[in-house]
């Protein structure tokens, strides 16, 4: 879609100018920092989120290096018990920061913030989200929250674990209040993003796109937003109470003042368990987009995938008690929460079966996004099934606070959310920057990352089943073989991520120009140029079935896919114009 510009003086030939796109639309720094364009805000989220991921990832490497030897390789005392304790406190700070940064600054905001912002209006064929200014405010709340978190680290790094359990979070000398305030602001950002996306999906769907003709990523983002809007206020109030407890000593969570520390856990997990679904649902949405495109086959069980997202969001609100099984909850409540925890596995499994059924007899193309989507299915299934193991009461009593739990949620968070995010990043990268990355290197990187993740986290499941507690800076020598394998896996992951950073950055400058539709996707974002113009679409695109790949052929000239004839607009839909 080249725009032709030229002057009007008689015979002067019309010179085709370089087409304007959102990346070149404004060139000043101000045009980026104060932009109201959803695509640019998405890119800014991406940059900040990846920066946070780099810091969190480096902290993870520190943790793994520390655990290479039983006494601890980095933080260890000079022999006396007191010096060991003093040194191990740094370890507590490192894993706390790793957890906080990864959960609140990477996993929760990065898919809705970066990929959601970039892709959501494009998938809708819209010009922008419903409230562009609110979108920018969300981004800056996120940045200010992240800066406060870093400030608290400079002042005195928090050593409570990312869960801030009372009463330790009241007693510790570290800067809990500043850190919690930062997360409070990130929570605001999350609520505003959720409201924005929900209103956008309600009000900006183009004519003809009914709820059940939306791309599945939008269903996933909608369900996520529902959780963001309804659950985040609870963690806000929890953190306000925690701050009041620390500053004024109101005595609601502090047992020394007659408070109830388990109440803090109830409050905290009422948000933080649904937050797990804030993290995983958008990743599932991305996988639901990628699997049919690279199987060249219509998605199987559209309604089931769509509604299972909503089901996960709703049931996800009712399972928080499984974090408190061994912390003094009554046996009756334990049984109810255990049952509900099993129930929430059902819609997740529905998704996995539908993805498999989509691939069945499809013409599978193992391009990088598809490799990541397949990795997601494998890793998420391991993570999900170990979650069911932990949901069983008798097993949880044994495995609670062991490395089994660490292995489980890293399979879900790293193997699920993060791999889903990387899949989406590779899928939309040509659309985002108009460049193709080196496919061969990207494929090998995916294989290396897959191996690295399994080497890191599978030994953690085994060592946890053997009884090694989590959060310990030192351990018994019998666990060392597992720990060495795990650390080697972490280093392999580091190599994979460095390679990824290398080829993605390389593609920005030297990559081949991306065609309009490099993968043969059927949803609306593939109908505009790569990268899209400032207003997203030159003409309002017509809405069809987003998973219809008939009449779509590969065009070797542009290296992309084109439709041989316009897509049939579904009969019941009003005609788009």
């Amino acid at each position, binding site marked *: 879609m080249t725009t032709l510009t030229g002057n009007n003086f008689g015979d002067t030939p019309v010179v085709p100018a370089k087409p304007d796109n959102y990346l070149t639309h404004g060139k000043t720094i101000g045009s980026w920092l104060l932009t109201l364009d959803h695509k640019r805000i998405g890119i800014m989220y991406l940059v900040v989120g990846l920066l946070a991921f780099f810091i969190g990832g480096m902290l993870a490497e520190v943790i793994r290096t520390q655990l290479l030897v039983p006494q601890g390789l980095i933080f260890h005392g000079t022999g006396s018990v007191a010096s060991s304790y003093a040194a191990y406190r740094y370890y507590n700070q490192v894993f706390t920061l790793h957890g906080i940064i990864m959960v609140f600054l990477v996993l929760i905001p990065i898919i809705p913030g970066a990929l959601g912002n970039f892709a959501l209006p494009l998938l809708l064929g819209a010009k922008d989200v419903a409230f562009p200014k609110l979108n920018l405010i969300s981004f800056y709340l996120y940045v200010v929250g992240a800066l406060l978190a870093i400030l608290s680290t400079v002042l005195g790094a928090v050593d409570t674990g990312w869960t801030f359990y009372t009463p330790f979070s009241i007693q510790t000398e570290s800067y809990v209040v500043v850190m919690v305030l930062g997360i409070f602001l990130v929570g605001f950002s999350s609520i505003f993003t959720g409201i924005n996306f929900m209103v956008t999906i309600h009000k900006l769907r183009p004519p003809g796109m009914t709820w059940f003709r939306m791309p599945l990523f939008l269903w996933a983002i909608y369900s996520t937003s529902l959780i963001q809007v309804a659950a985040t206020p609870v963690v806000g109030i929890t953190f306000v109470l925690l701050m009041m407890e620390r500053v004024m000593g109101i005595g609601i969570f502090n047992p020394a003042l007659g408070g*109830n520390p388990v109440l803090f856990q*109830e409050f905290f997990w009422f948000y933080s368990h649904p937050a797990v679904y804030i993290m995983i649902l958008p990743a599932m949405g991305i996988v639901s987009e990628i699997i049919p495109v690279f199987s060249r086959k219509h998605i199987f069980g559209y309604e089931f995938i769509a509604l299972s997202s909503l089901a996960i969001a709703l049931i996800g609100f009712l399972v928080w008690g499984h974090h408190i099984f061994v912390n003094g909850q009554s046996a009756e409540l334990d049984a109810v929460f255990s049952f509900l925890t099993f129930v929430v596995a059902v819609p997740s499994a529905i998704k996995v079966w539908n993805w498999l059924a989509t691939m069945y007899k499809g013409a599978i193309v193992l391009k990088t996004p598809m490799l990541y989507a397949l990795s997601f299915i494998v890793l998420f299934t391991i993570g999900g099934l170990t979650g069911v193991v932990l949901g069983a009461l008798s097993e949880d009593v044994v495995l609670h606070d062991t490395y089994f739990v660490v292995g489980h949620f890293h399979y879900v968070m790293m193997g699920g959310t993060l791999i889903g995010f990387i899949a989406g990043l590779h899928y939309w990268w040509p659309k985002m920057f108009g460049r193709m990355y080196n496919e061969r290197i990207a494929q090998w990187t995916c294989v290396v990352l897959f191996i690295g993740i399994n080497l890191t986290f599978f030994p953690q499941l085994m060592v946890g089943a053997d009884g090694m507690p989590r959060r310990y800076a030192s351990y018994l020598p019998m666990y060392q073989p597992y720990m060495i394998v795990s650390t080697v896996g972490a280093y392999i992951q580091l190599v994979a991520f460095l390679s990824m950073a290398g080829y993605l950055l390389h593609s920005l400058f030297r990559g081949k120009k991306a065609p309009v539709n490099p993968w043969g996707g059927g949803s609306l974002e593939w109908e505009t140029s790569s990268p899209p113009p400032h207003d997203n679409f030159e003409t309002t695109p017509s809405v069809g079935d987003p998973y219809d790949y008939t009449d779509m052929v590969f065009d070797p000239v542009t290296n992309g896919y084109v439709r041989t004839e316009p897509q049939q607009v579904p009969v019941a839909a009003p005609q788009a114009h």
Partner: protein
Amino acid sequence: MAGELQSETPDAAKRYGGKQLHVPGAGTLGVSLLVGSLSVLFISSLIGYICYWFSFPRPVTVHLPWGLWLSTAVLFISSITIHWAWLAIRHDIQRSCRIALLATLVMGIAFLCLQIWNWLEIYGALQSADHALKALHPQYVSPIGGMRMAHALIYEKQALFAAFYFFTVMHAVHVFGGLIPLGVVNVKARRGVYSRNYHPGVRYCLIYWHFLDAAWILILITLLITF
């Protein structure tokens, strides 16, 4: 149609990539979702407080200041006036709408003043409890004036003080947050921006103000039961 965008004129396009979106009904839905989100905030903290109260029942020795009834009445009236403003603008009665909006603003400010008075009243009660304690135990060091209320609370067994402050301050913060857009809407109404067919600001304030009223009634009932 819901999904339709109004076409933009090039000169109207804003400087930093603004696209002049006009989405009918988006604002109302957005404000409703925000109010839904805030309702979760209030309801969850009330539930948390009730759980806490049940597990640690305390003897009642303080009474709620009677000024609470006054502030309740003021807030209730402000809820009526904002509704009046909305009805007026729907019938295009500009003058009536302006008066009602101004009355709502004044009532909102009056409510905050009354709440400050109530906080001082409760603080006075806390202080006299502290004095009584000092008379009983000469070695007792008063924590009042410093930031740590907890000692007074544990001696007097009155975590209720903290709950009272927590809920009323949290509500007052939301009233204060609402006064700012209400002021903007007042100014816009004076400039004659709103009409029978276009009055989104009045509508958003209406939704928000009714929410503040409902939240306050829930808080008041909870405080009345637990004190």
